């Protein structure tokens, strides 16, 4: 039981990171119906930018977090502008391949610039362990929960209560009608990329602190897992992405706890297959067939 609880805590930490990434996937899919495969690499860039600002500019944690969020927001808007906007009216497969291309470009570009070596992420916050009833929680894990929850609340408020949030939902529901009602579609899409990428940047800094190491290909696996989380939750649904991410994170930790570390990734993909077979719309997804 103790081990179970301990792994649940670890799973929640990991799940929070996935949630930050999955939100970006799901929002971007919601508005332009593309799977932004380079999203995991934006997260990697966030981690590297945090590494740089802490080491070179001696930023503290908060500054590094905001710095990476702003940096990634700009990167996200740039990716949308350069890679996706020209293809707005192309077939989906073209956009999908472009997304994979952007992903490779970022990974290999970073490898060329900074070498493919693993680097130690500077520990701006000294790790402190707390123990309650035999369950160990680190201050970094608590920081991850807190940051994730705060960012998710802010996101929810933006989506539900602001002019831009209404534009986002309107554009996701019916881009043509939204445009005719005077909503600036390009601006709205840029905003979605900015917000989604900022969350990925935050996740990058947090994972750096948590795992202590970063490398140019670090975004690949978490990117795919976050994508799975978004699918499990129902692509396009923001609460779904958060729940899906926590499920995936906990599943991974529990697989490790019961001694199947080698199969933890496999377990995630098995969940993906099961969800796609039996609940293709995900847990919170729109059950109606998509109108084309």
């Amino acid at each position, binding site marked *: 039981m103790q081990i179970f609880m301990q792994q649940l805590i670890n799973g929640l930490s990991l799940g929070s990171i996935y949630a930050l990434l999955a939100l970006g996937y799901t929002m971007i899919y919601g508005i332009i119906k593309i799977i932004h495969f380079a999203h995991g690499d934006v997260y990697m860039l966030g981690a590297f930018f945090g590494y740089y600002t802490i080491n070179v500019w001696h930023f503290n944690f908060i500054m590094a977090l905001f710095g990476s969020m702003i940096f990634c927001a700009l990167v996200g808007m740039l990716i949308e502008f350069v890679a996706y906007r020209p293809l707005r009216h192309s077939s989906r497969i073209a956009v999908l391949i472009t997304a994979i291309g952007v992903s490779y470009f970022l990974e290999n570009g970073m490898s060329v610039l900074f070498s493919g070596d693993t680097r130690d992420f500077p520990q701006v916050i000294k790790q402190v362990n707390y123990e309650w009833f035999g369950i160990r929680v680190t201050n970094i894990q608590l920081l991850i929960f807190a940051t994730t929850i705060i960012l998710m609340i802010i996101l929810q408020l933006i989506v539900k*209560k602001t*002019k831009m949030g209404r534009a986002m939902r309107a554009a996701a*529901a019916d881009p*043509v*009608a939204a445009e*005719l*009602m*005077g909503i600036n579609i390009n601006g709205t899409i840029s905003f979605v990329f900015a917000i989604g990428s900022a969350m990925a940047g935050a996740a990058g800094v947090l994972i750096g602190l948590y795992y202590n190491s970063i490398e140019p290909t670090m975004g690949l696996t978490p990117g795919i897992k976050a994508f799975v989380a978004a699918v499990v939750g129902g692509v396009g649904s923001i609460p779904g992405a958060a729940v899906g991410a926590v499920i995936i994170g906990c599943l991974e930790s529990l697989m490790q706890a019961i001694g199947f570390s080698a199969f933890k990734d496999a377990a995630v993909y098995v969940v993906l297959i099961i969800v796609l077979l039996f609940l293709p719309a995900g847990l919170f997804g729109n059950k109606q067939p998509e109108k084309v």
Partner: protein
Amino acid sequence: MAEKLLTVRNVTRQFGGLTAVNDVSMTIYDNELVALIGPNGAGKTTLFNMLSGLLPATSGTIAIRHDGRFYKVSGKGATSVAQHGISRTFQNIRLFGDMTVRENIMAALNNQFKESFWGTIIRTPHYYRTEREMNDAAQKLIDRYHLTAVADSPANKLPYGMQRRVEIVRALATKPKIIFLDEPAAGMNPEETAELTTMIRQLRDENNLAVLLIEHDMSLVMSLAERIYVLDQGEVLASGTPKEVSQNPAVVKAYLGGDANAAG
């Protein structure tokens, strides 16, 4: 005398070898109630889609007067069309389904209010002011067009006739100078149609705008429209007042499929 608001000059639209709209010219004046009628497949919706910037014309020009100048609509894309005072509804209702009626209307007010990037993120005092103003503007429309009871229900949960009304109010929220209604009475019962007729007239009278509507319900068209354009096989068959049009032998023939004299 009313000024010209929307001019359509020799507009043609081809899809592959098919000519859906052929050399259509029409003019709409300020504050006018105009109906576009014609049998199925006459090209009415194609023409509407060109007028609202969704579809480029193969040839010809469409222009709208805005601040005293005429701007080309054809091939401009939908956003600029909205900015130049054109708004519309759709034959197959296209509300933002999961959003409430109020949110639908507020989304259409987007153009008229400015909110900064940081205001959205960290909620500056300016953000609260903008939100309040938008909400007030939406509330005014909700009250005026009797949507109070449904204001906070999701749009896709409303009955069909109500959704049509909401869509019209949403189109109105963009402050258009001309509004295109694509079969506003489709699927409505006679009672709802009567209410709709009142609403469209009220819409026009109170907002100083022109209305162009496509409609199959002839009693609605005849009681509402001041002028009618009849489209048949992509061409303007006739135009004029309801009386002139209803007595035009070519129109009678197209509609009844027989000889006008025999029918009369």
